[in-house]
């Protein structure tokens, strides 16, 4: 199948069951909320090396935020339900509580409950104050600019990680342009994040390595510099750059929709093929085939 002049390969993205949560950071200004959001989602590109994957989902206007101030919603994902609590305590404690004027609220209202504010409160050294409004417990932790307000409990739900697109281009310039267009279109969608820098990853990995200590190594099949030496190259002669977009979402439908939108947006001049990464289908719980995504829209 083709979108304009770009061929869409008949393959699938192999995605994994993960656990995800959403929280909302508010602050006096949009800039301070964004500063905290960028900090808390830093170094969270891949569970392989960062223990979690995270990203900014959307900006929230003041009239829609929990405390009437501008906010940013953030999504976090881990491979197991237990560790997400620790990641949130570490990161909200170090990156949100430290950021002037911020507050932090749960952005999900269903799912397994984890205690975040209820742990961070100990920073208050006994001066923290609990407030209960209907069923919501808030902690007020005294800090040097006033109080850090944080929800006692957050919610975690099953999610989908590792949805992906591979953009195979004639050169780096064209591929970057296509990747940028795709990520811009995908970021408009709810319930998903693109955890890599600006949504794009160039160092796609394969499972295993010739070095025993590594669980993943460079995906030589898609490295243009190795086309002539890699036994399993997947690149045609006129492909000189490959970029990947990884998608994590709160539901399979959200990831699929992001991939569909991404496919259309990435089909630009200079892009030879659009593909997806998988491990043969033996690792992930979900196989998201590319062609049915496009066929389904009629």
């Amino acid at each position, binding site marked *: 199948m083709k979108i304009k002049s770009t061929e869409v390969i008949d393959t699938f993205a192999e995605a994994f069951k993960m656990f995800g949560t959403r929280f909302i950071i508010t602050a006096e200004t949009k800039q301070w909320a964004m500063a905290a959001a960028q900090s808390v989602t830093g170094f969270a590109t891949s569970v392989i090396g960062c223990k979690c994957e995270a990203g900014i989902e959307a900006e929230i206007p003041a009239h829609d935020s929990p405390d009437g101030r501008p906010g940013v919603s953030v999504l976090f994902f881990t491979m197991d339900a237990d560790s997400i609590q620790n990641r949130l305590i570490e990161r909200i404690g170090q990156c949100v509580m430290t950021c002037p004027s911020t507050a932090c609220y749960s952005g999900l209202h269903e799912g397994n409950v984890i205690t975040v504010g209820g742990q961070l409160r100990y920073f208050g050294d006994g001066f923290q104050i609990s407030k209960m409004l209907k069923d919501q417990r808030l902690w007020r932790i005294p800090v040097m600019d*006033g109080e850090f307000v944080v929800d006692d409990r957050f919610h975690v739900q099953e999610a989908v990680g590792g949805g992906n697109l591979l953009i195979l281009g004639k050169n780096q310039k064209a591929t970057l342009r296509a990747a940028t267009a795709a990520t811009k279109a995908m970021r408009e969608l709810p319930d998903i994040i693109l955890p890599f820098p600006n949504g794009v990853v160039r160092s796609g990995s394969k499972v295993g390595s010739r070095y025993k200590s590594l669980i993943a190594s460079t995906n030589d099949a898609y490295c243009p510099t190795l086309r002539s030496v890699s036994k399993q190259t997947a690149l045609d002669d006129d492909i000189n750059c490959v970029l990947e977009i990884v998608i994590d979402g709160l539901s399979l439908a959200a990831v699929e929709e992001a991939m569909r939108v991404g496919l259309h947006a990435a089909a630009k001049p200079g892009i030879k093929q659009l593909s997806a990464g998988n491990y043969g289908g033996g690792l992930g719980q979900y196989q998201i085939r590319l062609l049915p995504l496009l066929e389904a829209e009629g």
Partner: protein
Amino acid sequence: MPLTLKLRHQPEVPLEADCICPDRMRSLSLDDVKRLAVFHGNREQQLADFFDCSGEVDGDIRVEGDLTRVKHVGATMSHGSIHVDGHIGLHTGAAMSGGEIVIEGDAGDWLGPEMLGGKITVKGNAGHMVGSGYRGSTVGMQGGEILVHGNVKNETGHCMRRGLIAVGGNAGDFTGVNMLAGTIIICGEMGIRNGAGMKRGSIISFKQTAMLPTFSLGCQYRPVFLKQYLNHLLDAGFDIDSKILDGEFQRWCGDSVELNRGEILLYAGK
């Protein structure tokens, strides 16, 4: 059609009608409801001696008439709703743990004493001891919400431990006296000696007031948590000026004769 109780004539002395409660009427027929016991003074009588009863017994009760002399309506209720079209007497919603009571008129003293949960809304004024503990009791309101759109009198939230009391108008003296925790919001003026003996908890007022000498001024700031409370009150129909939402409050800490962990927040301007 919900169960409707229409007061036929004013009782000569206070009428204790704690049977006007969804819990007490559960699985009863309308005839059973009519035979429920009420105490007219010290004399036991039946509900139908004072009220015309009609409708279905489905957990929702509508009460019509001036019930100023009717006490204990909704006491210990745990679910359902009671809608009072006029005024209501003493001890309404005492120790209730769930459900909702809406009073279109005024409420007497001891509204929601030792309440555990649920919600009481008064469109008019309320008397003394809103959400308080009974005399001799160490704990007052322990959960739920009492929203009074008008004024209240003295000792609102006495010994309160948890929950929210919000008053759209003014409050009398000793608001939050001996308060243990929880939140009291007074949109108007408070009387004197507010927060006396409070251990923890928050008393918030939009007007300045004379503070006890056992309270100390901490700072002037914008309490972020308060926005959620005020938005909640706006949703409930309270009239709150937008300048209050973004305004600064003085934070007074006290009462230093106790734990000194309580606070009184007084609006200080935008």
